[in-house]
């Protein structure tokens, strides 16, 4: 239960600030996350660093539930954080909650 106690929600953006098809980088206490708004209003949050060589995924081309890293075109799932195809690797993903247009990211542990 200790783990649950240390999780906390962080307000990162208003949903209006996000656009479908384009990532948004937010820096939470020095940690870089990429937010992606989907057509159905769901927001995904993943670490803004490609498992390959750390490319900024927030700058990648977005296709539905995937983003293509701008450095070497790795395809990363926004939902699971995993690399697709022949590439292997995974970025951290974070739970997101949207309440009254406010976007919260659930940060694990004490940040």
């Amino acid at each position, binding site marked *: 239960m200790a783990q649950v106690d240390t999780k906390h929600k962080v307000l990162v953006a208003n949903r209006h600030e996000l656009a479908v098809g384009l990532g948004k980088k937010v820096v939470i206490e020095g940690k870089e996350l990429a937010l992606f708004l989907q057509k159905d209003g769901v927001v995904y949050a993943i670490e803004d660093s490609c498992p390959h060589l750390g490319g900024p995924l927030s700058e990648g081309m977005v296709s539905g539930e995937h983003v293509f890293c701008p450095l070497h*075109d790795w395809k990363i799932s926004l939902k699971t954080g995993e690399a697709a195809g022949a590439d292997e690797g995974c970025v951290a993903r974070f739970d997101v909650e949207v309440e009254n247009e406010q976007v919260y990211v659930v940060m694990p542990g004490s940040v």
Partner: protein
Amino acid sequence: MKEKLVVIGNGMAGIRALEELLKQDAHRYQITVFGKEPHPNYNRILLSSVLQGDTEVEDIILNNYDWYDENNIELVSGDPVAYVDTDTQTVYSAKGVERSYDRLIFATGSNPFMLPLPGADKEGVIAFRNIQDCETMIDTAKSYKKAAVIGGGLLGLEAARGLLNLGMKVDVIHLSDSLMEQQLDAEASRMLKEELETQGMKIHLNKQTEELVGGNRVEGLKFKDGDSLDADLVVMAVGIRPNIELAKETGLDVGKAILVNDHMETSHKNIYAVGECAEHREVVYGLVTPLFEQAKVLASHLCTEDCDGYEGSIVSTSLKVSGVDVFSAGEFMDTEETKSIRVHDEFEDTFKKVVVRDNQVVGSVLFGDTSDSPRILSMMRSGQDVSEMNKATILPSESAEDNAGSAVELMPDDENICGCNGVTKGEIVSAIKDQGLTTVNEVKQCTNASRSCGGCKPQVTELLSLATGEDATQAKEPMCECTEHSDEEVVASIREMGLTHIKEVMNVLGWETEDGCSKCRPALNYYLGMVNPLEYDDDANSRFVNERVHANIQNDGTFSVVPRMYGGVTNPDQLRTIADVADKYEVPLLKVTGGQRIDLLGIEKENLPDVWNDLGMRSGYAYGKGMRTVKTCVGEDFCRFGTQDSIGLGIELEKKFEGLNTPHKIKMAVSACPRNCAESGIKDVGIVGVEGAWEVHVAGNGGVDLKKSELLCKLETSKEVIDTVAAFLQHYREQAKYKERTSHWVERVGLDAVKKVVLEDEEERAALIERMDIALSDQQDPWEDIIDNHKKQQDLGFEKKEVSITT
């Protein structure tokens, strides 16, 4: 704590063992590799292709440095291991790196055997074993003419062919009375000699070298029979010896090489050997297939102690000399217990021999046509009874009926296509079908077939054709994985059906993915804009980040800014402004580019609009698929050779085509004389001034696929030049595939076809020029556009978003 695995040797056997190991258990070991050569693991077999000019050194790298990083393998290269302490289980490198191990692999390979002749230490006497030897030969060929190769075996002949390609006169000196006597019988050997002599090699049989003569550098050879020969370069290719010095010093049991059991274990606990340095059941292998088989067994053993052991390999060889197909396997010489099937066709210059003992195929030699080799090898491995078979079943290529199907087609599924990597026909065919593969490269990525010597590429291509029902050498290439349609079909549909949005194209043409991918989206965005230049609303989200934010992304996520300098001409004010901006934003690197302008590197994204504003210059489009820059030489104003105003024409061209979207980047140049200081010979459009006229050259490429531009036409006025360039570029915009450079496009359609449209068909030429003007009519400087538009800055995410936690 992970167990520590140390590999001595960074070559094909050791690294293949690691690849197999990672496949089975990626996380069990913490791995360190020591290598003597200052390179990552490369394909030693293809050195002869590098020498023969078919491949570059970079292309034969099998595992680049990224691979080591990605798999958390520590690589100590250019630093051999000097000492192994088996008591403390620690290795020490020559430069003092020290690593302890739980398991240790010797993969030290072989050294070339240098004949201990007087004079063998002279400059210009080398072996043929590594990248450095290859480079030495290539360099030597630049200033010397006469080469001698000692050794008429596989390696020697490949080296000889390479030296011929490098323009040297080549003599091959061989001790025995026939070439490749280890692999070929007398008949095949004689045919090989004839063929190589036609290619220009001079071959001396029954010749023994006594001494190498010369000063510091070798000047010639003296033979036992009193003859002599002049040579500026001597390549010794008389064989290899297992590299077992370190193993001996370590105290491992050795025979011809390091002795190993069926699990590749040496005499010492936790120490293994694999590859050319290992001796298994009294055999030392020097070919790639057995090494890979050993690597697999070793990897399994390192993961699960209890697994099948290695039982030896049946080996075959092929000679990689262009124009000569040679294959040899097993016992190829006739003895009293053997009978053979022999086909010698003097019209086709082919020779085929299959040796049979007790109704089983035990060996073979093929010359001229080796297409039956996989089948023969598989019959040898399986020990199949051939007593009931006729000649055509054993050698399908000899089948009289043309429609009997090719050798590959008749092959059973469990036969190996790729001998190096042990990939069967069945595995390749199911990979093609299940994963929808369409190119040899994809097959290579997915199955490893043709990744080593590349010899099975023709069979893989044929399998692709058979499996997909299309000629794989000219198969229609779908735009990407999202669709079956080719680029041409998509463009035709956009035109014919009047499609206007990306989403619409995807819906109408039945895209298999909902939102496309990073390949098709930018292409569709380009095609729609090209077809409807005035109406189409560009989709920024379908553009690669560089074109979206109008700067070049760098490896650390910062950007670079290249302002436009027309024709590479600048002035004190401009330079002062750039210097001020560099100071103000603490720009980490200022660099003069190849396109004659200045690059400001390391700018944070949120600073880009301010940097642009402070510069007050226009975007150089150094990031886009579009017209980049026009490089110019000094020209008639100052240059004593200049015949024309190259700067003036360059600036005019750059202003005219600034901001144009094209299928791929366009680089231009204008030189004022044929000395070509602006390098017009390797540009998409390269203009060269001659007395009273301009030559227009097109479709050069200074990048990956280096290509000299071709002369399109010669014109008198700059107005004609600009019109012709406009017609050429518009034709390219309309006909080329997205991401196809002008060089590849012209190669595909032919320069004559381009000339017909751009120069000869006056009506079409005028229409092209008009459509180009329409495409250019809507140009606006993208930097200025963003500087003034706060909404755009927000949409494109230029503002930094920082959140602090307040709980």
